[in-house]
């Protein structure tokens, strides 16, 4: 377990700075690991090996030249395939974009490159980031390294799985209703959704623009904070990005102190529908927070039970509008362009052939919710419910500094188990959706394996807008307390299993 592939970003950074290892060695180790485990895990849609090695070589050269480099220079990272990376396929898990290679970089991609990170490739996701299992990917599902028969969560299952398959120490995700946090929860990794507007959406293929938010994924809290610091901050190319300083998340991740922090347990996120093993680990983690000096109390957010309904009207409405751009005119897959069919017929057929079942379901649902005569009853009511959710958060944050809940009601479910039951699939995001509707910061941290099935459980922390640092303060203290109990990180169990004959 002392291989390069098991080391975190911060440790690799120190080894590289100290000259004990080169970025090329680290990158090669990751690429070899990818080649070894991809047949079973399928976390990547595209491995950008040649360019990754070239990026690594350049960082090593700059370091040898004595140039000042950022803390993550030379550290490998995997990029969710919803972010544009010039020269690499960017499919969004959809047939309609299967041959698309963007001519530009997303702001997140550009910031990774500017900070000297080594992009290993593009990770699998549910089509256009719509799903909670990666089973909606047109290119097949990703498997959860804890149990290959189970889902890695979604939509960012590829990014989350790649971390505990030890293919990369860092990954980028995007979170619209839980697509960073729910996969983090079911893979035992750290996933953070920054405050809406805290990181740029420029070049992130849009799903629901008022909800989408890029964020960091890692195996440890400090690594996630370091990656957060690289990608976050104002971007003139995204009119919804916030022109304010990024909170010092790295300092917060090194504080390890909860004294006086007021923590609210959300009463509505528990009980019926929640697995007993999830609730047990959650209660134990809350007790640890209390033992660490936090003041814990119950807090009611009475409108949270309506969040799922509001989300499944607002999100498809925005989806139906955003996916209208895939018209087979300027880019994307075009079918039946044979001279006999008009542009509109080609458009219908291309969209019919290019979109998968979930994308179609959401386009139709959104078209209905926005249609004349039903707008007030559906979209209008959902927008009002969104106001009530925001008010619940505001009232709660007058009493406490952060809110906590399980990150998802159950552990990883089996591949295929929920594919034909959209409503069961949607419920995986029950706990994560409120923070997307309200735009506040939220994260999932690993808190152990469920005694029921031995699968990872995550704790969600929710903080007020622009108080992202509080997520890391809680996460770091929790991580330290748990690692003392376990004599190491949760993921070490996976590495041990592999070493056993």
């Amino acid at each position, binding site marked *: 377990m002392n291989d390069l592939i098991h080391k975190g970003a911060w440790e690799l950074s120190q080894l590289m700075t100290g000259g004990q290892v080169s970025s090329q060695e680290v990158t090669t180790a990751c690429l070899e690991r990818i080649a070894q485990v991809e047949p079973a895990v399928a976390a990547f849609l595209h491995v950008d090996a040649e360019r990754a090695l070239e990026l690594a070589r350049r960082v090593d050269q700059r370091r040898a030249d004595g140039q000042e480099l950022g803390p993550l220079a030379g550290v490998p990272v995997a990029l969710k395939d919803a972010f544009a990376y010039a020269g690499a396929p960017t499919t969004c898990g959809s047939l309609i974009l299967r041959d698309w290679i*963007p*001519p530009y970089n997303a702001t997140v991609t550009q910031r990774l490159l500017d900070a000297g990170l080594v992009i290993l490739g593009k990770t699998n996701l549910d089509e256009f980031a719509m799903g909670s299992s990666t089973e909606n990917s047109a290119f097949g599902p990703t498997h959860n390294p804890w149990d290959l028969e189970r889902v890695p969560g979604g939509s960012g299952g590829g990014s989350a799985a790649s971390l505990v398959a030890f293919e990369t120490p860092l990954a980028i995700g995007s979170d619209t209703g839980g697509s960073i946090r729910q996969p983090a929860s079911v893979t035992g990794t750290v996933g953070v959704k920054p405050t809406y507007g805290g990181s740029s959406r420029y070049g992130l293929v849009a799903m629901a623009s008022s909800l989408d938010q890029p964020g960091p994924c890692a195996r440890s809290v400090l690594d996630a904070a370091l990656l957060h610091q690289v990608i976050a901050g104002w971007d003139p190319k995204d*009119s919804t990005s916030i022109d304010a300083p990024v909170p010092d998340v790295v300092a917060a991740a090194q504080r390890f102190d909860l004294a006086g922090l007021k923590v609210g347990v959300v009463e509505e996120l528990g009980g019926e529908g929640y697995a007993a093993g999830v609730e047990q680990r959650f209660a134990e983690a809350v007790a640890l927070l209390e033992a660490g000096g936090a003041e814990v109390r119950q807090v009611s957010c009475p409108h949270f039970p*309506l969040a799922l309904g509001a989300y499944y009207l607002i999100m498809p409405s925005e989806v139906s509008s955003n996916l209208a751009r895939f018209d087979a005119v300027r880019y994307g897959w*075009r079918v039946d362009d044979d001279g006999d069919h*008009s*542009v509109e017929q080609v458009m219908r057929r291309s969209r019919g052939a290019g979109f998968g079942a979930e994308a179609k379901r959401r386009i139709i649902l959104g078209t209905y919710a926005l249609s004349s005569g039903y707008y007030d009853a559906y979209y209008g009511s959902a927008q009002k419910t969104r106001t009530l959710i925001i008010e619940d958060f505001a009232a709660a944050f007058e009493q406490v500094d952060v809110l906590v809940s399980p990150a998802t009601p159950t552990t990883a479910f089996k591949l295929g188990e929920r594919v034909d039951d959209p*409503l069961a699939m949607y419920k995986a995001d029950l706990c994560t959706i409120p923070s997307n509707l309200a735009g506040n910061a939220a994260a999932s941290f690993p808190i152990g394996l469920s005694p029921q099935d031995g699968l990872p459980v995550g704790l969600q922390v929710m903080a007020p807008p622009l108080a992202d640092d509080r997520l890391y303060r809680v996460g770091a203290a929790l991580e330290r307390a748990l690692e003392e109990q376990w004599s190491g990180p949760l993921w070490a169990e996976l590495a041990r299993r592999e070493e056993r004959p």
Partner: protein
Amino acid sequence: MALSRDDVAKLADLARLELTETELERLVGQLDLILTAVDSVSQAATAEVAPTSHALALVNVMRDDVVTASLPREAVLAMAPAVEDGRFRVPRILGESA
């Protein structure tokens, strides 16, 4: 309210989305279930509650009116489904009924 097969076909038409008969049938049943499940939003949505379209207070963002570099034409056309004479080629637009 229950959606009929024709309703869903009409919505697909509005969304410029070709669906097979099987897809239509399946969607009718699923959309009904989903709409029933989301109906709870109407409970809380009273007249006094103001709607929220965005979590942030949005302001219009203007940039300085200066020319900046744009993508070269070849880069933009490289990913087009069809190109002719340095432009996007599209299927015929007129004569829809033909």
